[in-house]
């Protein structure tokens, strides 16, 4: 009897272990925005850029896609999310990666914008939001990767003009960014986590190249300007806190 009981308890223990190995959780990516380390406020003409202007940000929309978590063994987990952030839609500041299996994750990577696969006419689900991001320039195709719009006080002279940093594929150049960021080890064991992904908007305008709004009010068909923004994108993103939720 005792032997049978011990065997039963041992079997139950093993089964429990098996169940635990199949655990999973949700990893939420929380999108935080700042300007040169300061809190981001919409439509406030108060930020200074390296080119010498004071500027404001009125509109901000962008796509993140091919979002992946990599564990310490190099295994990559992707849920195929294509996410559109829209400053006018507060709910879009977070996205969930569901059913992420238990693991020790050390890296977050994503495409800023859309890769060749999705960035074709009709490549995304035909929603109103995606239609408003279309890139209809004759000869090009696909979608805006980012709409970063605002006003600037030209060299602080009191003359206020507009800028539109609209990124996307033009003249055969894809122009999307592949971002990989190490994260403080996220030990997922049948629980949920939140990763704060920070975007410093001022970094689009510097490092390594100063982006001057003057002469760059509209850049959709300006590949050299697209390349400056793409190169500056390397310092735009960082990881904030990584927390169990």
């Amino acid at each position, binding site marked *: 009897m005792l032997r049978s009981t011990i065997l039963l308890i041992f079997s139950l223990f093993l089964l429990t272990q098996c169940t635990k190995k199949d655990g999973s959780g949700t990893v939420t990516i929380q999108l935080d925005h700042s300007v040169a380390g300061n809190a981001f406020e*919409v*439509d406030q003409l108060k930020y200074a850029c390296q080119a010498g202007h004071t500027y404001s940000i*009125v*509109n901000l929309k962008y796509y993140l896609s091919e979002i992946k978590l990599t564990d310490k063994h190099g295994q990559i987990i992707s849920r195929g999310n294509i996410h559109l952030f829209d400053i006018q839609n507060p709910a879009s500041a977070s996205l969930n990666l569901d059913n992420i299996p238990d693991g020790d994750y050390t890296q977050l990577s994503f495409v800023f914008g859309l890769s060749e696969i999705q960035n074709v006419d*009709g490549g995304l689900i*035909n*929603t*109103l939001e995606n*239609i*408003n991001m*279309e890139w*209809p*320039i*004759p000869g090009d195709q696909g979608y805006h990767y980012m709409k970063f*719009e*605002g*006003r600037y006080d030209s060299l602080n002279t009191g*003359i*206020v*003009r*507009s*800028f*539109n940093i609209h990124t996307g594929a033009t003249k055969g150049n894809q122009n999307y960014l592949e971002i990989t960021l190490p994260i403080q080890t996220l030990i997922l064991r049948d629980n949920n986590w939140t990763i704060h992904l920070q975007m410093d908007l001022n970094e689009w305008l510097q490092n390594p190249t100063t982006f001057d709004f003057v002469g760059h*009010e*509209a850049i*959709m*068909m300006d590949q050299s300007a697209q390349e400056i923004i793409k190169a500056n994108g390397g310092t735009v993103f960082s990881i904030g806190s990584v927390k169990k939720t």
Partner: protein
Amino acid sequence: MRILSTFIVFLILVLHSCTKDSEIPNSWTYNPTPYLLEFPDEFPQMQIELANPLTVEGVQLGRRLYYDQLLHPAGMHACSECHLQQSSFSSSAEVLPHINLGWNSTFLWNGKISGTLEDIMQFEVDDFFHADMNRLEQDSLYPRLFFEAFGTETITSTYTARALAQFLRTVISSNARYDNVFLPGSGEFPTEEEQNGYDIFFSEKGDCFHCHGGILFTDNNFHNNGLDTQPSPIGRSAITGNPNDLGKFKSPTLRNIALTGPYMHDGRYTTLEEVIDFYSEGLKISPTIDPLMKQAHKGGIHLTGKEKSDLLAFLHTLTDTTFITNPAFNSPF
């Protein structure tokens, strides 16, 4: 006392049952036929309220209500009086066209009403028309039509709004010359002028598309497009209370734009030529001017005479003549 109470309850129940039986003739049936909405694949999926699925009976009822002066408490006005089919269901500057409304979630020039078509129709029935439901209930036909559409003989403003919303979801314009000559598959091609106008419209040369782009030719958003140096207080800011929204009005669809003049929220421009001149040379700077108006500091996009006529030719490709003659949308009376 208890016996008396029981008797009264029983009497009420009997009377209630009798009333119902007497008000619903045997010839009335509630067996609505689902209405299949059709529109091209390029159009986005339309959000339809679960509580208000489209039925043939509901759409027909909505169409009748749209054209019926009985909706007005004094019997003097109907929706169709200001929303004329030959003018793409518009008539004057204040009247935004009732076209492709099923893809809208904000309504009126300043977005006073946001939500679903049912929400805006509820506003129109209750707050704009002050409709008296008794007038519909006393009509010889409406009680049966409401029963056939919604399974109720009690006519409420909610069901009235739902019927109007159903009809307006069917009022779709998707067969303009643009849809045939610029979208693949038809075998038809634009003229050289129309193609040049397309290139201006959809490039940063004209930069019309950021507010009026996509298959619906509107971004359904609010913008200050540079009409005034003192931006108007009756636009979006009147709803949000946000001074950053001064001078912002909803981008109207440009589908059938040649039919919906005069233009702008106050009708200040009579013709499309005047509108093109405004965007070319007449923009005015104000603190809330939309950043998309990036040539405003130069007064506009400065088109040549040829470019203006090409752009005008393109805008005329957005006219859908089959829409304004579609018998499914005209008066049932």
